């Protein structure tokens, strides 16, 4: 008789595949509100007769069929509401709709059943072309960033983005094309074309990369896999006249053509302040067999385990490690090696300032490991609880790690010994601030220990911002 609008009740906006909120969290909120009606509605059997989508322009319908097909299986009204909610989130995840509204109505028409329901998704497509223009001011450099995005180019959730940055010192650009498999959003293909310049003052090095890459993501059982081929033309140069000769020797042009594979399992409930779950990422990269100058095999892994303790505090342990094997007798390039140290890895040390160095320029190493143990607690006395205060945490940490070059002629015992001698470690405490769902800021007081000659330390207060933290 009446209409039921199942509107969005989510406090956080959702967008495409970056969505970090798990659908299950939302269902909890809904259920508590509907409890009173649940008794009445649960017993009533319904049949979903039609599922419509209104408001389509350029989107092809066959793409959407997969997302909404499960709604047909609902048996009672609560089920219909749950499934249509899930379908709504799937539609939003495609990244081609600005808004999706669900309207559940009793069915009418010639073939209407007495307990039949019609579910209609009213969608608003995104505009064909969106542009953005920013200006950024950084270290002695200003730049103008122009972005253009075309969501849903051919009607099946393909996305084309172009970003161009014009700065006083450098220009860079990137063009990216993303295509998911219809019905299986988790499987997708991305093509990238880019030019990026970077300056690394800790090595007195500047690097310009021009490259092209293709990436194929797919889930397998409970893991996520990524297969990628990348071809990069790298141009290395000295940042200053006073760069060390070891860095000067690396200047010039190289071509790297590499295949890589990444496997990741992420059962954490959030990327930034996880309360439970674990993350395991294993990555390997093989360069040289598909052309190019650089020739190596690179392995690295990342492991993080979180466990909730009493009083809202969380204990988190993480371990990183990696190894680079040059193939064919050519020495490894400074741009491929690992770096360690800084506010995002072993705290208390200068940015990437651990390990082999020459005249003050850090050259990186071919093998490393790093571990961290953190205890996160909410702010003392919990100011701003439920709102702003929840973005902060205090943490106490213990970090350790080592970076060195291995002599691959010796056996694994010698390698292990080398990695274990001269461990750098540090401990301290600080405050962490969460930025959205992807980044965090840290302000720590660190005490570095086990410092070797040549390392640069950051004793005392250290500030860090980034995406990936030890």
């Amino acid at each position, binding site marked *: 008789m009446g209409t039921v609008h199942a509107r969005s009740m989510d406090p956080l906006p959702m967008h495409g595949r970056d969505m970090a909120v798990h659908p299950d969290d939302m269902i909890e909120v809904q259920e508590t509100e509907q409890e009173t009606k649940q008794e009445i509605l649960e017993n009533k059997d319904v049949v979903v007769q039609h599922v419509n989508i209104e408001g389509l322009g350029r989107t092809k319908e066959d793409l959407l069929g997969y997302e909404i097909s499960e709604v047909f299986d609902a048996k009672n009204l609560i089920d219909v509401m749950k499934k249509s909610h899930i379908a709504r989130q799937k539609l939003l995840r495609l990244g081609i709709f600005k808004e999706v509204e669900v309207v559940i109505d009793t069915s009418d028409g010639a073939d209407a059943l007495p307990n039949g329901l019609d579910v209609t998704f009213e969608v608003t497509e995104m505009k064909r072309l969106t542009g953005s223009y920013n200006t950024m001011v950084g270290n002695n450099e200003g730049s103008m960033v122009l972005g253009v995005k075309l969501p849903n180019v051919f009607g099946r959730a393909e996305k084309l983005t172009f970003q161009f940055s014009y700065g006083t010192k450098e220009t860079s650009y990137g063009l990216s094309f993303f295509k998911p498999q219809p019905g299986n959003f988790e499987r997708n293909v991305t093509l990238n074309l880019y030019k990026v310049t970077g300056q690394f003052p800790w090595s007195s090095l500047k690097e310009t990369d021009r490259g092209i890459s293709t990436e194929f993501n797919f889930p397998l059982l409970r893991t996520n896999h990524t297969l990628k081929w990348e071809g990069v*033309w790298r141009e290395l140069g*000295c940042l*200053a*006249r006073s760069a060390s000769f070891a860095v000067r*020797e690396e200047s*010039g*042009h190289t071509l790297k053509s590499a295949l890589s594979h990444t496997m990741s399992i992420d059962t954490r409930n959030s990327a930034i302040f996880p309360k439970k779950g674990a993350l395991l990422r294993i990555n390997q990269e093989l360069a040289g067999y598909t*052309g190019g100058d650089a020739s190596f095999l690179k392995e690295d892994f990342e492991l993080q385990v979180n466990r909730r303790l009493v009083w809202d505090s969380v204990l988190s342990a993480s371990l990183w490690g990696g190894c680079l094997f040059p193939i064919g007798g050519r020495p490894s390039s400074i741009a491929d090696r690992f770096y360690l140290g800084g506010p995002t890895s072993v705290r208390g040390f200068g940015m990437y300032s651990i390990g082999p160095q020459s005249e003050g320029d850090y050259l990186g190493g071919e093998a490393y490991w790093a571990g961290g143990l953190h205890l996160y607690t909410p702010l003392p006395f919990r100011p701003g609880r439920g709102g702003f205060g929840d973005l902060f945490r205090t943490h106490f940490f213990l970090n350790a790690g080592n970076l060195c070059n291995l002599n691959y002629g010796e056996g694994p015992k010698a390698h292990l010994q080398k990695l274990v001698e001269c461990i750098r470690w540090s401990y301290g405490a600080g405050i962490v601030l969460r930025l959205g769902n992807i980044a965090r800021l840290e302000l720590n007081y660190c005490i570095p220990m086990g410092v070797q000659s040549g390392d640069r330390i950051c004793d005392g207060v250290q500030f860090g911002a980034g995406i990936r933290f030890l």
Partner: protein
Amino acid sequence: MSLAAEAFVSQISAADPWPENATLYQPLGEDQILLSDCASSLAVQAYLRMCNLPVQVCCRPNAEYMSPSGKVPFVHVGNQVVSELGPIVQFTKAKGHSLSDGLDDIQRAEMKAYMELVNNMLLTAELYIQWCDYNTAAEISRPRYSSPYSWPLNHILAYQKQWEVRRKMTAIGWAGKSLEQVYEDVSQCCQALSQRLGTQPYFFNKQPTELDALVFGHLFTLLTTRLTSDELREKVKSYSNLLAFCRRIEQSYFEDSQAGSSSRGFSKGPSLF
């Protein structure tokens, strides 16, 4: 580093004696190095030998990018890196080794002028022949320049370099010249050098100076390099006193074989390309 700081550092290093492990870097001798780079490198090697300063020659494919000024050769002495003959002469002078101390003012002016003559005419002509002459660029320069790199980087770098040199030629007004005119310029330059040399053993009578090293570097390379045509070599050969001059320097200073790949003597035929 600012110029003042650099001057300060070079003053400090001037006090250090010339080390044993001084190294000169140039592109790969067999496959990569081109006419102009070979001439410049040979000039620096000749100069250092004339000063009796030991230096090892090290070949790297990325020597051009390692150099602080983008030009080869460059020397790594202690912890200083100095490129091109002019700055290297000044650097050795700061360390107390100089070949031109015995010259008076007028002779020094003439020496500098003739060095600029070689740079202005011979070096530019070499660059022109390598990169602006279609045949030489396609058959010799581009393949050699790009030999250490893999596809497609080799083509990109070779064409980039060619384009850059052509722009430079346009900027200094050489783009309109034909190959014949360039050969004529080389001939004129050799004539001037021949006139100045006359019958003396070296340009300033008894002792060699940096001018002799520079002239030797360029002329010897022109005489021993196989290009698409022999015309240039014949033109240089026609000045007998220059020929004798090159032979004299080769015998005096490069007799202990090595000297890169140019020691096999030009009487036997070209050895560089």
